[in-house]
């Protein structure tokens, strides 16, 4: 028998290694089979329990009615577009504001003390306010000032979401900045980089890489909090579901909205996971220094 190495470099592989590989392959196949079977058993058990429970028919009619489900998709989907729009704008605002806040908080010079103080107060205040209160304050407070005339609900929603999440994300970025080894700052300064350039080209890119999982978490939280702007009257996915619910007295549209929100977060989570993994080993250098 003359089997070649998987690596393709032409080395012959010993019998022992071949046995090990065979064993690992069988092992992988076995565990795959086991997990499939257990998943099926689990799903069947849940189905049996639910479908035999007394109120199942009622619950199914109220929450999982197929006709209502199909009927709700276009309306809720259209509402979701508004959520996505608000989300996109907010992400950009949060990205910019949070970075500025984080950088302001990591400055050291005495001259910038007021800036540092302001940033500190801001992050601590806005991390403490519940989203819904901020929405009410912004949504009804700013228009009441009467300076800007009529402001669309989605704009106010963007402002409220950005205010809160800038504070959260600023703290995450700050943690990332502080996690970059000080020798990196020194090395950049040694090459003649200014403070600002050191931050932008050397520190922030490394900081962001370190905090990608945390940022992703905040992003997913933001995706669903964007659904709260419905309290301001914008016709988003949640609001559309609410309207349908008021017409039919059926809760299925809410389920549709929920499914949409989950689906919305899914591709992003996969994408970021892959990205983070790819870049992780690049940072290992830090550990060796």
């Amino acid at each position, binding site marked *: 028998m003359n089997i070649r190495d998987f690596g393709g470099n032409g080395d012959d592989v010993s019998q022992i290694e071949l046995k090990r590989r065979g064993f690992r392959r069988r092992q992988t196949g076995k565990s795959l089979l086991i997990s499939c079977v257990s998943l099926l058993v689990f799903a069947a058990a849940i189905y049996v329990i639910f479908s035999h429970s007394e109120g199942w028919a009622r619950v199914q009619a109220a929450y999982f009615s197929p006709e209502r489900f199909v009927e709700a998709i276009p309306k809720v989907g259209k509402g979701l577009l508004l959520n996505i729009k608000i989300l996109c704008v907010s992400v950009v605002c949060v990205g910019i504001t949070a970075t500025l806040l984080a950088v302001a908080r990591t400055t050291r010079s005495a001259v910038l003390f007021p800036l540092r103080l302001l940033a500190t107060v801001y992050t601590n205040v806005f991390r403490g306010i519940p989203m819904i209160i901020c929405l009410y304050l912004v949504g009804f407070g700013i228009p009441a000032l009467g300076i800007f005339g009529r402001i669309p609900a989605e704009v106010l929603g963007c402002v409220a979401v950005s205010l809160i999440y800038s504070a959260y994300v600023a703290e995450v970025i700050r943690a990332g900045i502080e996690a970059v080894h000080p*020798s*990196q700052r*020194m*090395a*950049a*300064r*040694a*090459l*003649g*980089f*200014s403070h600002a*350039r050191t931050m932008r*080209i*050397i520190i922030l*890119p*490394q900081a962001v*890489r370190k905090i990608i999982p945390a940022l992703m978490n905040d992003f997913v939280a933001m995706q669903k909090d964007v659904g709260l702007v419905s309290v301001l009257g914008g016709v988003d996915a949640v609001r559309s579901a609410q309207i349908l619910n008021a017409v039919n007295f059926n809760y299925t549209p809410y389920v549709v909205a929920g499914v949409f929100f989950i689906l919305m977060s899914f591709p992003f989570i996969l994408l970021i996971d892959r990205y983070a993994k790819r*870049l992780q*080993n*690049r*940072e*290992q*250098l*830090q550990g*060796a*220094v």
Partner: protein
Amino acid sequence: MSDPVLRLVNIKKRFGAHKVLRGIDFSIHEHEVVVMIGASGSGKSTLIRVIHLLERIDDGQIVLAGEDISDPRVNEDGARAKIGIVFQNFNLFPHKSVLENVSIANRIVHKLPKEEAERIGMELLTRIGIAEKANRYPDQLSGGQQQRVAIVRAIASNPQLLLLDEITSALDPQLVGEVLDLVQELKAAGSTILMATHEMDFARRVADRVVFLHEGRIAEEGPPERIFEDPRHPATKEFLSRLRIK
């Protein structure tokens, strides 16, 4: 003789009550290689950091090519950009490729066009024999390769002076050689170098002048043969004899 590349006048530096540098006077001329030796804690690293304006001095003057760079009106970043420095730990930028590491200062600080900066970078990488790794990332290089990249990164923008602080002490013995060979090459190419090291054999081979630091002062300086064969200051004698016993 021409103006020295670097002239230190009565440099003093203290950390709290601890006086680390107690008045250092010293010059280094173009194409000269000066090796600084001295016991651990004698202030070698501090002196190097001070020259690079990473620490502020308490007294004295640092004159780089005729310009007093310890003057607060001087643009520190500009002055730093004229001095290359390599630390004990390589400090390559882990999120930049090897080629980007050696071309970034030329691009960003010295405003060369990207192609030009990368051409210079490739030339340097070719010189140290790792051109084929240009697009790898630092963590994919060996320690010796990383340190050589750090050295060429420091010289990529033609600094007037190169400061090397114990660049081999984080390396396996067999990697030390390849890094020191590079320093010798730089010397042959005419670089002006001030280095702190514990590699006495290397100091002897490469130095034009050896400076012995003791208790924050230059206790003794001279050509390597003289310092190593015939040390005059008692502290130098003791330092060198302790090394021999080991």
